[in-house]
């Protein structure tokens, strides 16, 4: 406890001292880590701006927009944020090289929001070995939580995929106890995590699952899988897919005259995707679909018309990304996660060290993220590295997601904590 107190005291003293001598050349009481000066914090990140996952590049642009907004408002504790964001093409070797460069040449203070399970797995050992915060990775694979002991410098942000599936399982057990479940999942760790969660949530009712069909991202269409699932007699359809295939799945089910109760994973449930499916397959294809929400949806204009957070989002987008399609939830994700980052930096105060920032990120309780779904608390602890665990189930009603029941916290249910 003592080091912590003494650090805090030093921090307060240093902050006061720095305030008192603003403009002078005297540095704060002790040497800060690289990437921090009196006027600047340097952060680095990588996103796929080329290659197969380029759709997620907009997260990076949303982050940059939010940092510009914060900088124009005076920065964080008087420091401007410089965000170095590079294209990794979704390729692990590329990401590893970029991160080395950011750490060794650009002297970043922390790596913030690198995207994708493979990319983050590849850069994690290096960052942990160097003691550089590897913050709020944009992926929900369980490893970010599960392996926290081995990699204390790494932390996630979004809900893990297992937790989400557990929520669907609970909804099925409550509302459709006689369901025969058919599952469509992407054949990789992402899909597998959902499957594990579903089975965990169903527990001894696991045999409710009558058929599981996988698809590859290289498949041109999931028509065959839909036919298989329909033929299995399933009356409840879990879609654990990326947006393109989720849309296809809903449309093809309708076209094959299969009308199950549909559960759709959050990643694919943004309003534009629902509209796309509705346009292609008719409104019947998407009516009554169930999903989860943890962030506000910028395309949901009606629900958030008077929302202060959404108003700010629209202002930020209009000013810093005027030509972007602000209905794209990836931008909002970027803005929201950048808010958490700034929040952590702000709490760390004037005397920034990597250790301190990491401690705060791993002991976070953020109740006021303007873009989290109302009531969602972003909350982490050293042995639980998925800050967002609360979600609410929602049903699609022709143009809009309508929340059902209350926020569910899966913190105690998922294996991601182990």
């Amino acid at each position, binding site marked *: 406890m003592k080091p912590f107190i003494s650090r805090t005291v030093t921090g307060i003293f240093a902050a006061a001292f720095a305030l008192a001598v603003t403009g002078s050349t005297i540095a704060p009481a002790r040497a800060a880590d690289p990437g921090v000066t009196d006027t600047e914090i340097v952060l680095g990140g990588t996103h796929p701006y080329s290659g197969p996952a380029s759709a997620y590049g907009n997260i990076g642009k949303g982050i940059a927009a939010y940092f510009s907004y914060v900088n124009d408002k005076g920065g964080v504790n008087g420091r401007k944020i410089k965000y170095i964001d590079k294209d990794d093409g979704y390729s692990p070797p590329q990401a*590893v*090289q970029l991160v080395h460069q950011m750490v060794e040449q650009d002297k970043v203070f922390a790596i913030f929001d690198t995207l*994708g*399970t*493979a990319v983050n797995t590849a850069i994690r050992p290096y960052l942990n070995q160097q003691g550089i915060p590897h913050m709020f990775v944009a992926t929900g694979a369980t490893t970010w939580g599960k392996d926290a002991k081995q990699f204390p410098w790494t932390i996630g942000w979004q809900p893990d995929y297992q937790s989400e599936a557990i929520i669907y399982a609970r909804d099925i057990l409550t509302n459709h106890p006689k369901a025969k479940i058919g599952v469509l999942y992407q054949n*990789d*760790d992402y899909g597998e995590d959902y499957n594990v969660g579903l089975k965990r949530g169903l527990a001894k009712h696991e045999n409710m699952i009558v058929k599981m069909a996988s698809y590859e991202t290289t498949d041109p269409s999931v028509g065959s899988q839909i036919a298989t699932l329909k033929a299995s007699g399933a009356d409840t359809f879990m879609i654990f897919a990326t947006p393109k295939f989720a849309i296809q799945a809903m449309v093809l089910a309708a076209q094959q005259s299969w009308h199950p109760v549909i559960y759709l994973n959050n990643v694919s449930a943004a309003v534009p995707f629902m509209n796309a499916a509705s346009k292609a397959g008719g409104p019947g294809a998407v009516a009554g679909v169930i999903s989860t929400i943890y962030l506000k949806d910028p395309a949901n204009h009606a629900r958030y018309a008077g929302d202060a957070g959404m108003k700010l989002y629209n202002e930020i987008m209009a000013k810093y990304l005027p030509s972007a399609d602000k209905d794209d939830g990836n931008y909002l994700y970027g803005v929201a996660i950048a808010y958490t980052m700034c929040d952590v930096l702000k709490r760390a105060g004037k005397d920034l060290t990597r250790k301190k920032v990491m401690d705060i990120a791993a002991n976070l309780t953020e109740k006021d993220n303007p873009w989290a779904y109302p009531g969602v608390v972003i909350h982490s602890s050293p042995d639980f590295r998925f800050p967002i665990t609360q979600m609410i189930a929602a049903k699609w009603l022709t143009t809009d997601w309508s929340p059902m029941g209350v926020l569910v916290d899966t913190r105690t249910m998922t294996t991601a904590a182990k």
Partner: protein
Amino acid sequence: MRSNGPRLAAIALAIVVIAVLPAIAPSFIVFDFIFVAAYAIAILGLIVLTGMNGQISLGHGAFMALGGYVAAVLAHNAGWPYWIGVPLAAVASGAFGILIGLIALRLAGVYLALATFSLAVATPSFLKHFKSVTGGFGGLSLDTVKAPGWFPLDAQNWLYYVAWAVTGVVFLLSALLVQGKFGRALRALRDNPIAAVSFGVNPYYYKTLAFGWSAVLAGIGGAFLAMATAYVSPDTFTFALSITLLIGAVLGGILTFWGALVGAIVVEFLPFVAQKINAGAPGVVYGVALILMMLFVPDGIVGGLQRLVRGLIGQPQLQPALEPTVPPAASIAVDQPSRE
């Protein structure tokens, strides 16, 4: 034949630069140059295949994948050190290369391009399919290569010198191969197949062997790519990697071994430059660069420079080697586009 002087001087210069780089360049550049070595070895494989053999491969990423995974699986599952892993990667990849080479014997030019293109696209699904060995989509993490006790510098520098030492060895072996009986046979087959066969050169034997050697090189390159990243996953060995190798070979210059070195440097650093030119669409930069190069400097950077230098010192111009009417990759050269 010209004198060997300038060529030996260039080789000596390259060796000196590589040897002293860790002393003068920042650490991350040294790190990047481990990747350059990996690409250079793999691109050399492509140059041997296309330049000497006249066979087009759009799927050399698949051989890199095999080499990378052999090294990674041995290290990850069995704990074997890299100095066993890399040679085994070369052997496995070479064996696979001979198999593909046998198939390739029956596929003329563009058909081979098509088949290898498909191989490149399908490679990640194979890697995902054999989950118990490859770790599936999540891939395998590796321990970083450790330096031996007597080595005065850190582990990264050790891997750098190992990678470049291996690069030197495989370049030398390839050069010997090309200049020896093997190379003569291939050149004869390429330039006058009927005469060659009537003199007793067995085309199947030599062409298949060339494919095998090319795959050995790609496999070694893949193993170093895996070790430098300290991680392998299907996302590492996508179709884009195969195209990257081809871009490197073509931009560097597919007619000379120097093309492998220059091409590797280009593909390593082009992505960083392309983002600066157009952050919204790096792909446009690659695509346009590739087309412009083919239209105006089909023999690549090295070939273009050689012509430029000859022009400046008033030597007679060789015709640009990829000019129309010259058969595919007419003259491989360790030395220069030769006119024997």
